[in-house]
């Protein structure tokens, strides 16, 4: 296998999780015909390159008590959005923060920040914090609460 194929095979083998056994890398390698050491080396390389963000526990927000989930969206001056986006993303309450395209005239918002609170009051307090940070660079904003999860399979790399 070429290195890129090995990486894709490793992604497919581990994207649902590592096996909970004393030697998990060896167990993954056994399926792919690699040694545990080879698996660890590839994973270390993927961590270095950023293909793996981290290796660890992925908590369920809801079970941690964060039942109010608001997608806050902001119409921010194009000249300032990148610098301000970094600062919004650094706030402790923000989990995901992206710049995305507007769809005018109905959708003027170009900055998206996901907020998580134990209730909507907490989420609204977080949004006020963002509004204060953005100041006059922000023309308008909205918060879209999730009211039902219609599907959640996790993002997967498809099989061959």
């Amino acid at each position: 296998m070429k290195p890129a194929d090995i990486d894709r095979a490793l992604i497919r083998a581990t994207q649902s999780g590592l096996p909970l056994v004393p030697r998990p890398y060896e167990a993954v390698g056994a399926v792919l015909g690699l040694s545990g050491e080879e698996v660890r080396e590839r994973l270390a390389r993927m961590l270095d390159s950023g293909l793996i963000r981290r290796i660890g526990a992925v908590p369920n927000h809801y079970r941690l008590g964060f039942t109010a989930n608001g997608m806050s969206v902001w119409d921010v001056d194009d000249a300032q959005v990148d610098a301000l986006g970094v600062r919004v993303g650094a706030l402790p309450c923000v989990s995901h923060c992206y710049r995305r395209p507007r769809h005018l005239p109905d959708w003027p918002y170009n900055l998206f920040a996901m907020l998580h609170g134990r209730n909507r009051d907490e989420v609204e307090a977080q949004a006020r914090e963002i509004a204060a940070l953005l100041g006059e660079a922000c023309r308008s904003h909205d918060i879209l609460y999730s009211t039902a999860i219609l599907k959640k399979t996790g993002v997967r790399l498809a099989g061959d």
Partner: protein
Amino acid sequence: MLSPEELHLIAHLHGGFPLVDRPFAEVARQLGCSEDMLLERLRSLLARGDLTRFGPLFQIERAGGRFVLAAMAVPEARFDEVAAQVNGRPEVAHNYRRSHRLNMWFVVAADSAEAAQAVLDGIAADTGIEVLAFPKEKEFFVELKLPIVADYGRKPHEAR
């Protein structure tokens, strides 16, 4: 409800899971418990849904994949029917109902930008509803930050 010990474990295992032959044994040493006990706790956190996953968190774009956030304004009378049509596509990873005129927000994961666009076009054709695409143009931050988890751990009486 998560115990303070479980919250501590989740925070401790957020990232940096060791790339060594027996990683659980090494983490158990750091936590002062046995390898068996750590594995058992992780199995139970996963089984209860407190963790959605334990393992590497990939940034699939670095392996050539693409995620696209998209939204539709679905008439209430057709909501369930359209949700079934959207969810029926394997490329749709998440789908949330949100409090807005654009009331259905989903993420399409595909091997390329073109493949993602083909899925969005297909959904628009199936449903007869315009699909607005919000591909990310810039990422400022991804991931729930740990101070929130740590803070939450100090207030176990507020859980739920």
